[in-house]
């Protein structure tokens, strides 16, 4: 089953002055349970592509269908709700809420979804255990290492059981040990819980772990390999 269907996506910046096509007619499908890395040099358009797939940016042309819903047709408010229920985000710089503990950060999206306390507790505890960060539950982000923060960020993204997770350079700020550990956890979640991951990355270790690698050059798909 396709989680994402993007057809003829085009994103043009400065259409009225000096038009720049960041994404130039990309079509792709992502199936449930895929572990996909989108790679390419800086400025190739991979982040723009992920932004459009994640409903954060609107394409100049083309459509994005997520789980059967054409997200470009949604109102801003509907799109916000859609992101909350269907898409998990992992940011390069973690972007945890500094005034909340690790567990509260993980529970945050479930709170937005108005999940009951028991469910939130159970889900957060379960994810922290799987991520190996149970002992950090009461600590704030400033008290965690980069690797621990990124694990909390991944747990937060997973907490609401989204259709897929978009992770932009998730290992860019991590040392090699933390990177290995994080990738192992994500690979395990992918294998055991069939969570769909889409990475934008330069990191060879991420590329090595990925089951599918899409290379983008100059806004176009240069190659699409499934291992």
């Amino acid at each position, binding site marked *: 089953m396709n989680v994402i269907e993007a057809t003829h996506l085009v994103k043009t910046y400065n259409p009225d002055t000096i038009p720049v096509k960041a994404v130039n007619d990309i079509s792709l499908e992502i199936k449930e349970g895929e572990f996909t890395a989108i790679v390419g040099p800086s400025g190739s358009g991979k982040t723009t592509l992920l932004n459009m797939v994640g409903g*954060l940016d609107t394409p100049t042309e083309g459509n994005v269908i997520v789980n059967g819903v054409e997200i470009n047709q949604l109102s801003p408010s509907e799109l*916000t709700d859609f992101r909350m229920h269907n898409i998990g985000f992992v940011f*390069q710089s973690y972007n945890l809420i500094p005034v909340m503990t690790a567990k509260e950060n993980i529970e945050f999206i479930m709170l937005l979804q108005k999940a009951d306390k028991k469910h939130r507790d159970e889900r957060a505890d379960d994810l922290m255990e799987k991520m190996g960060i149970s002992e950090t539950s009461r600590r704030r982000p400033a008290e965690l290492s980069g690797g621990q923060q990124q694990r909390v960020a991944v747990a937060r993204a997973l907490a609401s059981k989204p259709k897929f997770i978009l992770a932009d350079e998730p290992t860019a700020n991590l040392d090699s040990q933390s990177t290995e550990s994080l990738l192992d956890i994500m690979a395990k979640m992918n294998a055991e819980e069939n969570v769909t991951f889409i990475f934008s990355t330069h990191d060879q270790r991420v590329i090595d772990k990925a089951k599918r690698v899409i290379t983008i050059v100059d806004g176009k798909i240069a190659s699409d390999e499934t291992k």
Partner: protein
Amino acid sequence: MILSLSWKNIWRSRKRSLVVIGAIIIGVWALIFMIAFYNSFGTAFARNAVNYEHSHLQIHHPDYLVEPDIASQVSDEENIVQAIASDPMVKAFSGRQKVNGMIASSKTSAGVQIYGVNTRSESTTTSLKDHLVEGTYFNKIKRNPVLISAKLADKLRVKIRSKIVLTFQDIDGNITSASCRVEGIFESKSPKINEGVIYLKKADLNRLVGVDGINELAILLHTNEQIDVMKQKLEAITKNTVRTYKQVAPEFNLMEESSVITKQILTVIIMLALLFGIVNTMLMAVLERTKEIGMLRSVGMHRHSIFSMIMLETLLMGLLAGPIGLTMGFLTIAWLGDEGLDLSLYSDALKEYGFDAIFYPEIQNSTYPVLMTVVMVTAFIGAIYPAIKAVRLNPLETIRKL
């Protein structure tokens, strides 16, 4: 959830939040102090005017209000006096004969208002006897003794036992002169009385003008709250006009109105200063968190929730600081209300206006909830712009990349 997040956000930058909270506390405290201080001026002004000049109520013949003529005597004096003498609300009363005239010494002359008074009742009503600074109170000089103010004595260059001549119209309209001697010199707390009032015995003045009665009856009550009730009572038993001290002296209303306006202006100035402080701080708080707000929007937080979060942060600071400021203000006023605020440094200037050097700041309890509301409204208004700024942030621009 929003409430909890807002509360935690307040303490994210502890110093900055404490500055805002401190500013609100000091603003509220200063406002309470200023209002209470202004109130004490008003109260002192009214108290002096009531206790030493007008009393709470005055009764005149209706014609006296049109033309303050000696012929307009209070009618039915005996019945009124009988009624008020036994009324528990009445603390003291004094019947007077008031005429306008001239006072002349060997050196100079001046226009004055001559009060013919019952020496005993005037002393209990306006504390006249207590204000003597020199001489005696109508008990040494037998023929036409007068009491004049120190200011007037200075102006006329007279002293105790000096001879002065009073000139005024009698009941028939003839100009009459009377030779009098200064028996006492007083310093009233009423600037008007110090300026141009002299006291004669009522019997002497009545003999000189050819009447037998009074053209003013001043009534001092135990409390201000009794004024309306007593006024109604008196109006029921007499056809004379009964007026409150505020009706007798319209400057009270002017002073009250100007006091209200001054307090409102003060409130606006202090709240405007707070408003700019709040806007500035909250704007900094929002701009500092653009990336985080972008993340919140990305993961599914609605604009209205972001708006509520920023609004709540500000309102919570107001809710925290407001009661502290009010309590500090309350305690300060409670203390100064007992101890008094000593302005001896300015006593000469204050004396000119009939004020004592010590003021007792006071504030009505109903002012506190009003001030709390004003603080919350200010916080609310101050939060709107930063909150709008926060919801207008484009999540894509703020996080740049996913």
